[in-house]
């Protein structure tokens, strides 16, 4: 029984409670609560201005909430309020146990530095001090994200959009984070490139048992990647649940509109 508790009843990885953000009279996010467990992928969908990016910034401790709080279960098992972390701890979390995949790879990569160093940087930041081992690890990550390893010494500015995005993913995953934030990870890519990227992310997430929070306006991305979904409108979560349940049996009018606006796949 205790073992059962450990396995299925483990504490949530992240807890959001009554999160809100206001800018003066403008309400960007209101009263958002959820639990995220290890290995779960949560999609946050909604159109521009629905508050999903604001929410992602609060969850990733880049923006201080006006109300409520976000707690995270650290690697030592202690769940802590993100607001109670010092800046050094927060940045360390960001470099090790978290990943953040930006829509624009130029935001998440060092464009003038070689691919190998882009991947190796997070290792060096946690004290790896052996060139050969850093390079071997970077090489194996390039392989995993299907980048030709002969390009390891090229800077990402010489890469295509899809390659850059895959490199960004490798750079984030090299420290084996437990939680990855993704902000429109397939935005701005060709459809065929998107499919390959989605497939890659899907298999990496399941192989590594990652938890992920994916912000997207693309319901196909949400369907393929996520277990659960939250639909946002006007800064509030209007519908939430299992991804296939919400998309196949949407209850709210707005969700029905979103679902019916998608071209059949």
């Amino acid at each position: 029984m205790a073992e059962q508790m450990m396995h299925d009843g483990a504490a949530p990885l992240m807890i959001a409670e009554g999160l809100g953000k206001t800018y003066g009279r403008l309400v960007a996010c209101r009263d958002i609560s959820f639990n995220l467990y290890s290995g779960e992928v949560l999609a946050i969908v909604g159109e521009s201005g629905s508050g999903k990016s604001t929410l992602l910034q609060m969850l990733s401790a880049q923006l201080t909430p006006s109300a409520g709080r976000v707690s995270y279960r650290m690697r030592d098992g202690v769940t802590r309020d993100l607001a109670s972390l010092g800046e050094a701890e927060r940045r360390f979390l960001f470099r090790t146990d978290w990943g953040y995949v930006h829509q624009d790879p130029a935001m998440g990569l060092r464009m003038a530095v070689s691919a190998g160093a882009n991947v190796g940087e997070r290792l060096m930041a946690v004290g790896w001090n052996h060139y050969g081992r850093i390079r071997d690890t970077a090489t194996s990550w390039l392989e995993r994200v299907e980048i030709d390893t002969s390009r390891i010494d090229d800077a990402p500015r010489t890469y295509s959009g899809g390659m850059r995005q895959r490199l960004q993913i490798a750079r984030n995953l090299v420290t084996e984070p437990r939680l990855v934030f993704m902000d429109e990870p397939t935005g701005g890519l060709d459809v065929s490139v998107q499919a390959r990227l989605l497939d890659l992310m899907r298999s990496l997430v399941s192989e590594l048992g990652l938890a992920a929070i994916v912000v997207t306006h693309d319901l196909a991305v949400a369907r393929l990647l996520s277990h659960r979904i939250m639909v946002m409108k006007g800064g509030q979560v209007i519908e939430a649940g299992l991804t296939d349940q919400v998309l196949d049996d949407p209850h709210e009018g707005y969700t029905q509109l979103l679902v019916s606006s998608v071209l059949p796949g």
Partner: protein
Amino acid sequence: MPAMIELTDACKTFTMHLQGGIRLPVVRGVSLAVMPGECVVLSGPSGAGKSSVLKMIFGNYRCDEGRIFIHHQDATIDLARAEPRQILSVRRHTIGYVSQFLRAVPRVPAIDVVAEPLFVAGAAREEGRSRAGSLLRRLNIPERLWSLPPSTFSGGEQQRVNIARGFLPDLPILLLDEPTASLDAANRAVVVDLITEKKRAGVAMLAIVHDDEVREAIADRIVDVTAFAAAA
């Protein structure tokens, strides 16, 4: 022995907000039970809500009223009120679902599509692939296709890949939505054999089958869904 599936007064209505909020009742008062080793076939004309009942049991459609009890990991869980992660756990460990259509992931080879439920449950690559391979062989999918993504296959081949994926893991409950719809006689016979084997292994099955011959072969009991038709 507890029932593996037990529905009491389950009810489902669609509210179409985009059409002025009209309510489309689908089923009401659904009550049925499926015991281990039993195959129950749902009957009724199309549109009677047979697929909706399966989807409610799989957690794909939400249940507005009533209960959906599932025997899951030595306990009973009400799927109508379960948390998303509990439903995911039920899908991983208890309920398998074979739909009419394969939702193929681009670029994933057929053999991995089939073996994926085993991988998710923690099986090793080689073991998963070898088991997937023998099932594909049984379903007459030539070996040269195994490494190709099924999106390029014919309808019948895709259907058989889907069947293999659904039948491969050893789950105690299987939901079958017209598994033999586009199969030839030889492959239909294979599916009937597979169902018979599952029964012998104690699997509880709830199926929708239009082919009289197949229904005859597999059904222990037939439940007519028209009885649950919601009065419009």
